[in-house]
């Protein structure tokens, strides 16, 4: 159970139970959708880009605790960031979930370090992030965690 307790940390359970920024964002000017075709997880990300900066952001969808908590936490992390900063944050997040190394600065995204012991769940953790990055690129194709291989 120690691995599982690492995977399902309190931060994650909390975001899963009480997701932040959930639902359609009425003022969004960018949107992208992500699918995890292996399991049917879905995540839509809505964001309002004010110039180069993410003025507001929300998500919607369904999936496991990992994917929902990750998307919720992501919206918190990305609000107010530029596209370049968002890309950098994703790189950090990706490193954390694939290597299990906690970030240098203390951050909630460190809660996802336990994912690395469950390779099949990495896709769950990155689903929302992929959608957000696609939304930022204004990419019209739906994001899927299968096309963006980890």
């Amino acid at each position: 159970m120690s691995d599982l307790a690492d995977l399902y940390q309190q931060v994650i359970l909390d975001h899963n139970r009480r997701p932040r920024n959930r639902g359609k964002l009425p003022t969004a000017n960018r949107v992208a959708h992500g699918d995890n075709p292996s399991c049917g997880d879905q995540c839509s990300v809505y964001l309002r880009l004010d110039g180069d900066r993410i003025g507001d952001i929300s998500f919607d969808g369904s999936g496991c605790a990992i994917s929902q908590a990750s998307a919720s936490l992501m919206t918190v992390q990305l609000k107010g960031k530029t596209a370049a900063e968002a890309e950098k944050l994703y790189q950090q997040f990706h490193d954390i979930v694939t290597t299990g190394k906690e970030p240098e600065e203390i951050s909630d995204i460190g809660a996802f370090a336990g994912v690395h012991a469950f390779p099949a769940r990495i896709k769950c953790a990155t689903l929302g992030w992929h959608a957000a990055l696609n939304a930022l690129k204004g990419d019209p194709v739906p994001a899927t965690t299968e096309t963006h291989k980890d």
Partner: protein
Amino acid sequence: MPTWPNVRADFPVLHQQVNGKPLVYLDNGATSQKPRSVIDALVHYYERDNSNVHRGLHTLSMRATDGYEGARTRVARFINAADPAEIIFTRGTTEGINVVARSWGHAHLKPGDIVLATGMEHHSNLVPWQQAARASGATFKFVPVLGADAEGGLDLAALDQLLTPQVKVFAFTHISNTLGTINPAAEFCRRARAVGAVTVIDAAQSVGHGPLDVQALGCDFLAFSGHKMCGPTGIGVLYGRRALLDKLAPDETGGGMVVSVTYEAATWKPAPERFEAGTPNVADAIALGAACDYLDALGRDQIAAHDALLAQYAMEQLSVLPGIRIIGPRVGAPRSGLVSFAFEGVHAHDIVTFADEDGVALRGGHHCNQPLMRHLGLTSTTRASFYLYNTEQEIDVLVASMRRILKFFGTA
């Protein structure tokens, strides 16, 4: 409940620990485990008889050919085909259905025709027909499922309405891999025949789980996979009525299925060779024959009874869990050896991950059944699927594991 002394001893894979707990393998709907005799058939073939088939006159090649054609005859007997030539070896159910949808569909479907399937088809018996309809200009329709949790099975009244003479083919699953529903396949074939439609049965979940007789069913085509019936991966069967097969153009072409080839043209052998281009999967076909032997030795009616009793027991035990929603036939109604369920507030993936910690192998997801999931208002379910080596005690382990998970997520 029928059980067989020491049947678990026949399956080496079952005797291991997963995450420090005894493996409880309840993912048989995805694939079954293999008895020693099937593994031995592979080893024996490669250690003694391995050779290419058909085109050889030396001893090993004759042995390989005898083994391969013997497996064809064995499978014909297993499903009571009238003629071994009606047995085409494929990679699995999916390939078999693609062969029919492409070859038969290409030759027979035209604009105005209707391709009929059902609302509970696996993607493998749905998407090939969508594509065949699209390629030919035919219309794709499906028989809806009844009840909020699909507990009513298929809508037979709707089937009556849908089965018009425009319907050229009716493709349906014998047993739903998600619901556990057992469709009245013989009746479907009879009704379809009355309007002149060809029938294609997806028997992936049924062939190894109970008696099956293609002549009694009265179907035109039937596809299944070896790996779901104690056989190896990479081998499956497409059954086709001889009269239809001999009129069908080949799907793939190449060595072994031609009579005469010039640089300009080629002519085809009759079935089954016509549909088996290239070197076949000899070893796995032979091992599939061994799987038929194994299942028939236990008795397929006994296996069906065993699986069904386990499913009823699981239904009873699971149904008392808080927030559970079990889909498919109601308790007491006929259902195959599987139970799909969802909990309010806990996702199937999280359940599967936690159950694995208890050594229990389950499947969570859409089970290649996205349209049905959408119809049910779900994105995924957790599925426990049983086979001849499972026990009531294993279901008790499953239920205890579910209780622990619900507790962790604070929903119980």
